[in-house]
């Protein structure tokens, strides 16, 4: 593989543009808006909400502009050319030889997530205008919501791990504030704390992973790319260079993945996500669709080379990510069956879908997983906002499907239609968007040799279809029950109650019974459902190569890049040379072997060829799930078939399973009662014993000996020497004082005269000495 300058062609520079160069403005705008809302929000006519909405809209515009110019950029590249990300970096602070940068790393992945986040945030803010009208902390809600989006946007376009960590932690903080928005209720503040601490547990992994990567990659990146070991571009290239020690990179990948487990609600740290439903519904929608939980998936997708090499993706039949992802899919889908709270069903569904994303990433299906982030954001946001719409206008702020819902399809036609579209998308029914992403994941997982996990994926698809059918049936079909039947039960205080106190203003209108929500709520729903229906066509693999736009725009091309630094340091213009023509058509070595002359930024991944037969099979499984669940729901909830009702009480095994599910596999008990106690209690007891026996013993011995010594000292030293001196000096002072008494006249003028004459004398002496 000789790469002489004459062989390599010099390519024209890639197209760029204002939006791409200034993409760093996207998170800056919400950050400024946050400060403004906090400072002057309460004095504005709309209590600061207009600032939040405006900032999100301008971020969306910038992100969309950047997306358009990124598409132009990819089009300006030749087919096998690596599309350089638009990187800008500034020095943030320096400390002890470490240079912490701040900057943007704009490529297809970050553009995609930026657009999704800005878009969903905009809609959620508009929805919140109506949903939280009259709330007592309206301004603070919008401030936190804006900062939340800002944190996610900053994390997405971060060019180095430090800025990434900053955005990550901002989100952790804001999720705490938003989940605990109605903190007067004890359950809400507990949920907020739980979310915060659970995620923090995982965050330790992020810190460890970042530090490990920095210390092992820094030398290589400084030498080859002139960037620090925090740089995402540097780390990616380093991971694929063949230089890293395999143990180090494996441990770093595992540490980073632990952070993803915490953030993205993967098993076994998924327990915080369903509790996070305590927050206002728009928060749940934002948190579950585009921000926060996607962060963990995004981290894996962003630093994919590290995971690819560290966990030997494609090289083995199972690794940490696919195992965790697979477990998460199944256990959370099973939990969704026993929930009565509609938002909790959706929460477990999110956990399960995140499991799919992780499964895809772990099995080398990078593009389908990233595409699933994109499609999932739309339909999950739509489902959550739909649930909010029901509780807002029909079920008197209750989320309890069994008690307060049912038969709502007639009174809420818009909510019902959008819900059905999103549900079908979530189940992965053709041609809704979920089909194109989820089916691709399952297909590619099997194609890459993870056969067991493909089956788990299919089981998950079956369960998804079934529990969503159950939830849909309970909510929209059958007879109206409880609040949605008009029995406005003002005195009830069940757990799923959504801030009864803070919605007093609505209670009057609520007593009119269920009705369709206002425009500010339905318009976001309609927009989202249209996208849930159509966004899948952006990467419609069944229709051939020309439909795979995402592959063209988002997937980094796995090409060995030879960079010649052109006069001056890094960041100066680079001439990118391609390998000569014959090498282009051969398969890239990136990911599978050490690149010989250039640098790889992305591993070579396979794409499963689409087969209608496979799609039909998964479709059949989904429809089977829907049908079985529909029949069972009808029998159980409407006809109340005697053979089914109370089955869990009669059959012991089923009862055991049900109890296990209702108690969420006892994981909460394990964490709070067993782990926390077993660590905290012995530590406290040991500390007490140490205190009583050792510290006190030492103290008593010291005290006794001190008393004896002090007795002697008192008699001889204190009484004779010290007191004698003190008494004598006192007598002396007294006589001196009597002599000096007349000067203390109490007259300020006299004091001043003495002061100045003393100064004059001193000055005189000074002059005399100096001359």
């Amino acid at each position: 593989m000789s790469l002489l300058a004459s062989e390599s062609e010099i390519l024209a520079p890639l197209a760029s543009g204002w939006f791409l160069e200034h993409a760093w403005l996207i998170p800056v705008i919400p950050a400024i808006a946050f400060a403004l809302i906090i400072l002057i929000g309460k004095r504005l006519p709309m209590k600061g909400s207009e600032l939040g909405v405006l900032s999100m809209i301008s971020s969306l515009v910038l992100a969309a502009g950047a997306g358009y110019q990124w598409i132009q950029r990819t089009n300006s590249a030749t087919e096998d050319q690596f599309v350089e990300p638009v990187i800008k970096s500034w020095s943030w602070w320096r400390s002890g030889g470490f240079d912490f940068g701040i900057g943007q790393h704009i490529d297809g992945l970050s553009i995609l997530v930026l657009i999704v986040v800005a878009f969903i945030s905009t809609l959620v803010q508009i929805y919140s205008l109506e949903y939280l009208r009259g709330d007592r902390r309206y301004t603070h809600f919008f401030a936190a919501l804006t900062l939340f989006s800002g944190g996610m946007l900053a994390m997405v376009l971060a060019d180095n791990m430090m800025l990434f960590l900053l955005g990550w932690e901002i989100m952790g903080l804001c999720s705490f504030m938003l989940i605990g928005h109605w903190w007067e209720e004890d359950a809400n503040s507990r949920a907020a704390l739980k979310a915060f601490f659970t995620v923090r547990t995982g965050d330790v992994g992020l810190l460890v992973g970042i530090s490990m990567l920095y210390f092992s990659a820094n030398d290589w990146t400084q030498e080859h790319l002139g960037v620090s070991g925090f740089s995402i571009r540097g780390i990616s290239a380093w991971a694929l260079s063949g230089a890293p020690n395999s143990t180090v990179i494996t441990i770093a990948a595992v540490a980073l993945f632990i952070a993803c487990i915490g953030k993205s609600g993967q098993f076994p740290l998924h327990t915080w996500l369903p509790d996070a439903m305590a927050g206002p519904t728009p928060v749940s929608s934002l948190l579950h669709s585009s921000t926060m939980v996607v962060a963990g998936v995004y981290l894996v997708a962003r630093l994919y080379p590290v995971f690819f090499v560290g966990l030997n993706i494609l090289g083995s039949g199972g690794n940490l990510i696919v195992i965790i992802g697979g477990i998460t899919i199944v256990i959370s889908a099973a939990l969704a069956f026993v929930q009565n709270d509609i938002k909790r069903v959706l929460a477990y569904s999110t956990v399960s879908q995140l499991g799919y994303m992780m499964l895809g990433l772990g099995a080398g299906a990078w593009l389908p997983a990233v595409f699933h982030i994109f499609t999932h954001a739309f339909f999950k946001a739509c489902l959550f906002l739909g649930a909010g719409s029901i509780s807002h206008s029909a079920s008197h702020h209750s989320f309890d499907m069994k008690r307060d819902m049912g038969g709502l399809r007639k009174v809420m036609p818009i909510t019902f239609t959008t819900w059905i579209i999103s549900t079908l998308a979530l189940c992965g029914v053709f041609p809704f968007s979920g089909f194109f992403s989820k089916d691709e994941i399952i297909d590619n997982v099997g194609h890459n040799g993870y056969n067991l996990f493909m089956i788990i994926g299919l089981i998950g698809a079956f369960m998804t279809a079934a529990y969503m059918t159950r939830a849909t049936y309970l909510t929209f079909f059958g007879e109206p029950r409880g609040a949605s039947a008009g029995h406005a039960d003002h005195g009830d205080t069940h757990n799923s109650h959504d801030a009864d106190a803070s919605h007093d203003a609505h209670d009057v209108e609520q007593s009119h019974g269920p009705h369709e929500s206002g425009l500010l709520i339905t318009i976001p729903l309609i927009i989202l459902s249209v996208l849930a229906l159509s966004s899948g066509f952006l990467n419609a693999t069944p229709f051939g190569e020309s439909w795979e736009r995402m592959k063209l725009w988002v997937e980094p091309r796995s090409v060995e890049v030879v960079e010649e630094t052109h006069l001056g340091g890094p960041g100066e213009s680079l001439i990118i040379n391609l390998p000569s023509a014959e090498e282009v058509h051969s398969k890239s070595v990136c990911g599978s072997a050490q690149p010989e002359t250039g640098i790889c930024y992305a591993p070579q991944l396979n794409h499963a060829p689409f087969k209608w037969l496979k799609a039909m099979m998964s479709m059949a499984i989904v429809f089977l799930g829907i049908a079985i669940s529909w029949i069972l729901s009808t029998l159980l909830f409407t006809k109340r078939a005697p053979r089914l009702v109370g089955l869990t009480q009669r059959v012991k095994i089923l009862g055991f399973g049900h109890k296990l599910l209702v108690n969420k596999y006892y994981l909460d008990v394990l964490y709070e009662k067993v782990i926390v106690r077993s660590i905290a209690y012995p530590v406290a007891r040991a500390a007490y014993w140490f205190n009583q026996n050792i510290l006190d013993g030492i103290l008593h011995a010291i005290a006794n000996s001190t008393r004896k010594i002090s007795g002697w000292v008192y008699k001889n030293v204190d009484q004779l020497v010290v007191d004698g001196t003190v008494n004598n000096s006192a007598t002396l002072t007294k006589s001196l004082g009597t002599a000096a008494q007349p000067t203390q006249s109490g007259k300020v003028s006299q004091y001043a005269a003495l002061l100045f004459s003393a100064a004059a004398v001193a000055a005189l002496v000074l002059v005399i000495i100096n001359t």
Partner: protein
Amino acid sequence: MFVNQFLFLGAILFCIGVYGVVARKNAVLMLMSIEIILNSVNINLLTFALRNGSTDGHVFALYIIAVAAAEVGVGLGLVLLVYRNKKTISIDDLSEMRG
């Protein structure tokens, strides 16, 4: 440069200030006299700063102005409290500290 003239001005102001502090009975006038003393010091500092061509004296003068402002604030506060308690600001009436 006529350094002497500046120094004379500073000395004269200083003397006026000292006279004011010693001879005046009114607390406010005393405070004003102290200001005059501080400003005479400023003049001296600036004079020597100009002669030596350094900016240190200017910086010190600025500091003194700031400190003097703070000191007057405290002083006037004291005078105000004294007036409230004794209905007078004559210094001679304040001789509780007599030994």
